[in-house]
Structures are given as C-alpha cells and as structure tokens.
C-alpha cells in the first residue's frame, strides 16, 4: 500500500468515525456483495459520504437546512414603500377630489401613511403557533435532507459494488 493510499484510507476512516453515529441513525444497511475487504468498505463509505453531501447539499455530520424564519414581532405587513407610495397615490387622488392633486400627493408622499402603515397586531397564542409551524418546517426540511443524502449515499455505494438497503 503506497503512502497516498494510506492517507486516503486514514481520511476515509476518520470521516467514517466522525459520521458513523449519523450514518447509523440513517439506517442504511450495506453488504459487500463483491467480497470487498472491511478496509475497502470503510474507504468506499468515506468516498461516498463526500459525494453524497455534495450531491444532496445535506451533511448529516453538520445538519443545517434553511427555512424562512418566522416574521419578527411587529414587522409591518405593507412595508414603508407601500405606505409612502400608496400615500402619494392616494394623496393625489384626495387632492384631485379637493381640487389640488399636487398638494394631496405631497401630503401623502412626504410623510407616509398614518392609517396606511397600520399593521396586524400579534395576537396572544399566534406567536407560539408560528413558532410551532416554523419548527415543523425545520423538521420536515431536515428529514428531506436526510432522505436525499441517503439516496445519494446508496447510489454511490451501489455503484461501488455493494448491496444497499434502507
């Protein structure tokens, strides 16, 4: 075994030791159907781990998924632009009705809407509900990431001559 091969085996073993708990948790069963040695199997698992992470975008050793965070408390729903633009437009309408569109538009645009910038209150219990749905979305995204990783890992190991079952 050359130095390069030894390094690769060491890397594969390290990666496998680090990831073993997660791999075990993923419940992927592997059988060396071509009679591969245990060392070769570890090496292939390490290689397939890196490939599966790359393909699936999910790393079981560092599981991170992105889901949009719940809106912070008190975030305006219409936004300042909507209020100011709406204020200008409606100000112009109001001014036009009053006979002076320019004046109305100026009132609306210069200062933003008093009533146009009102937003929904955060009702009691609503924040908890949003937090729960956010957590559910996180868990779902995590499960999808795991599943994608497992499929990629299985594909790789199958390609290297192993029988894989999930």
């Amino acid at each position, binding site marked *: 075994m050359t130095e390069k091969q030894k390094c690769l085996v060491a890397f594969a073993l390290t990666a496998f030791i680090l990831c073993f708990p997660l791999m075990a948790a993923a419940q992927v069963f592997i059988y060396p159907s071509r009679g591969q040695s245990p060392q070769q199997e570890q090496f292939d698992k390490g290689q397939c781990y890196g490939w599966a992470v790359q393909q699936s975008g999910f790393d079981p050793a560092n599981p991170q998924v992105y889901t949009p965070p719940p809106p912070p408390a*008190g975030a305006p729903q219409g936004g300042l632009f*909507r209020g100011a633009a709406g204020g200008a437009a409606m100000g112009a309408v*109001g001014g036009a009705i009053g006979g002076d569109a320019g004046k*109305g538009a100026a009132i609306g645009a*210069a200062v933003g809407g008093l009533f146009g910038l*009102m937003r*929904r209150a955060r009702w009691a219990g609503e924040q908890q509900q949003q937090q729960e749905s956010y957590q559910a979305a996180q868990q779902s995204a995590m499960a999808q990431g795991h599943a994608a990783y497992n499929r990629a890992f299985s594909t790789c190991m199958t390609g290297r001559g192993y029988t894989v079952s999930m």
Partner: protein
Amino acid sequence: MKRFLVLGALAVAETLCVAPLGAAAAGKYDGSTPLLCVPTVVAECRVEGECRRVTAESVNLPQFFKVDVKGQKVNSEEAGRASPVTTVDHVGGNLVLLGMEAGRGWTMTISEETGRMSAAVSSGSEGWVLFGACTAP
C-alpha cells in the same frame, strides 16, 4: 322682592355670559382649529370574523394624532406620518372625515360638542375600530 332681584340678576348674567360660552362650546370641535386626538380603545377585526382589543402601539398607530381639517390631513408629527383627508362633512353635530390610502379606506367621526372620536380603518383582510377623544390644544 330682594330674592326676586337676585334671581333676575343671575338669569341676566347667565344669558350674557354662560349661554354664549355654551354656544361656542357646541362648535368647539368642529374642525375650525386643529384637533389633537388620542385613540383610547383600539379593536382589530380579521376576515375570519374575530375581533380583539389591541394597543395602538401593537398595530403601529401613533398614540396621538392631529386632525387638521383646513390642511386636509390627519397627521402625527412625532411619527412623521399623515393621511390625506378626501371628504369633510358636518352631519348631526358630528364632524365626519373620510380618507383612503394604501388600499385602505378610513372614516372618522368627532362629536363637535364633546370631542369624542371614533374611527374605522378597513382593508381587504383586516380592519380597526378606534375610540377616543379629541381636544383643541
């Protein structure tokens, strides 16, 4: 006789002094001068049909706002916000203002005699009802 004279003097005094004040007070909140208003109760209603009492702060409504009928606006200088008034009317002793902005319509009614104020702001999926009072600063 003396008692009659005293009562008569009081009646004259009331006619000369109090009655004009009362007449002036009746139109004190008619919008001829800007009014400073405070929403003391705010309720939020949603399209699902449920309404709840909320704070002005929680719905991003300033604690005070000025009603400037001559300037055709309702504004909060502190918050730097204003809503244009499109229609002004005097109906049944009330000053009634209408406006619209950002896809919303609003109406405000102020008792010209007491300064009591109520307003409604409506949009597609929610609405707010305000109750409060106005004063002429």
